[in-house]
């Protein structure tokens, strides 16, 4: 256990029932030889610190600045994203859906929590919770309003329910007044929620405010 401690968490209160159950299971699995504690740390550390929405933001910024790349991305997202170095578990088969002035896309998994890990990391808790999974398909505009996204009535909302191993990434609209920004600066503007489709990318002045 000595190499499997998390120094950023300190328990002073007694462990809850579920914490005890997990701790007991962890000890048992290590004792049985089923789990290498260092492998477990590696798994958590990978998705807590190394793989996250900055990857997706780089894909988006490149698509905004490189029309030829954008075309490849929309036609064969898996290889266009792999070209940027992002691939693997829960991103084996990728599809990118583009927002325009006529179409807004958002992504959900009503049956579990499917989410494109290599480009966005692990999903936020609200994405996995009942309310979002239940309502994204039946009242997407109401959900978007809760996220502060107000769409014109003539914009079509397309909801992508991730029921197979295809993983969806939303290509948000590039904000106005960003012609002077380079790819890295553009990537800074792109937050996780915009790539799930529950936010728009704000213009740089708004972002700075």
């Amino acid at each position, binding site marked *: 256990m000595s190499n499997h401690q998390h120094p950023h968490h300190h328990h002073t209160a007694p462990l809850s029932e579920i914490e005890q159950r997990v*701790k007991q*299971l962890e000890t048992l699995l290590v004792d049985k030889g089923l789990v290498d504690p260092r492998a477990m740390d590696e798994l958590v550390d990978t998705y807590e610190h190394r793989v996250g929405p900055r990857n997706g933001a780089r894909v988006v910024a490149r698509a905004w600045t490189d029309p030829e790349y954008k075309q490849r991305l929309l036609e064969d997202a898996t290889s266009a994203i792999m070209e940027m170095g992002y691939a693997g578990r829960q991103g084996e*088969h990728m599809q990118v859906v583009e927002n325009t002035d006529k179409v807004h896309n958002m992504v959900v998994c009503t*049956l579990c929590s499917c989410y494109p890990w290599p480009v966005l990391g692990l*999903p936020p808790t609200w994405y996995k*919770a009942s309310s979002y999974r239940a309502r994204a398909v*039946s009242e997407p505009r109401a959900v978007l309003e809760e996220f502060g996204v107000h769409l014109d*009535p003539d914009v079509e909302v397309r909801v992508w329910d991730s029921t197979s191993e295809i993983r969806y990434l939303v290509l948000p609209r590039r904000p106005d007044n960003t012609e002077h920004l380079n790819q890295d600066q553009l990537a800074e503007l792109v937050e996780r929620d915009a790539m799930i489709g529950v936010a728009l990318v704000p213009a740089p002045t708004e972002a700075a405010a």
Partner: protein
Amino acid sequence: MDGAHDLGGMHGFGPVDRSQQQNFVGEWEEKVFGLTLACGMQGKWNLDQSRFARERMDPAHYLGSSYYEHWLHGLELLLLESKLLSIEELESGIANPAGVFEPVPQERVPGLLEQGSPTLMECERSAIWQVGDRVRIRNEHPHHHTRVPRYIRGRCGEIMRHYGAHIFPDAHSERGEKVPEHLYSVRFSGEELWGDKAAEAKSAIFVDVFEPYIEGTAS
């Protein structure tokens, strides 16, 4: 199976709790994630079998518990069903006997994550449907694992894209077999799924649908 996991269109959950921004709430959730993936790398079960283990949770418990509690329930069930642990070991927390398996070492983790589990397969049968076809989804309620959500069963939609043939989740879960079936992106209008009164204007729902889930051409 028609479990509590099949949430699309259900009412009563209230607004989305946007305060929940993080992936893990507490260290125990990190541990459940790490243990589940580490045990999964033993190769005793596949992704659809692990989904089915979570889906079999008691519905009231499923809806009343957090996401990683579903994972914990699923992991314990898989460990028992695949005989990696006995019920006595799980209850006591004492390994009997200890040290009988070989864990996947840390060094292999990055490679396994990078490799993932691609599901695209060759298929000798050609795809039945073409882009633009209007199809009706079968109204079937199997007891086994399936990836056709309740809210599209019996409904009509348009084939928008053919994704090739992928591992069919139903057989993958039931028998561990990798059977290729053609996979389509099917577009349903909000009105078709929720009725004219409840549907929001100008909304469309795109669902990935395996060929066996399709009944036939819709008029």
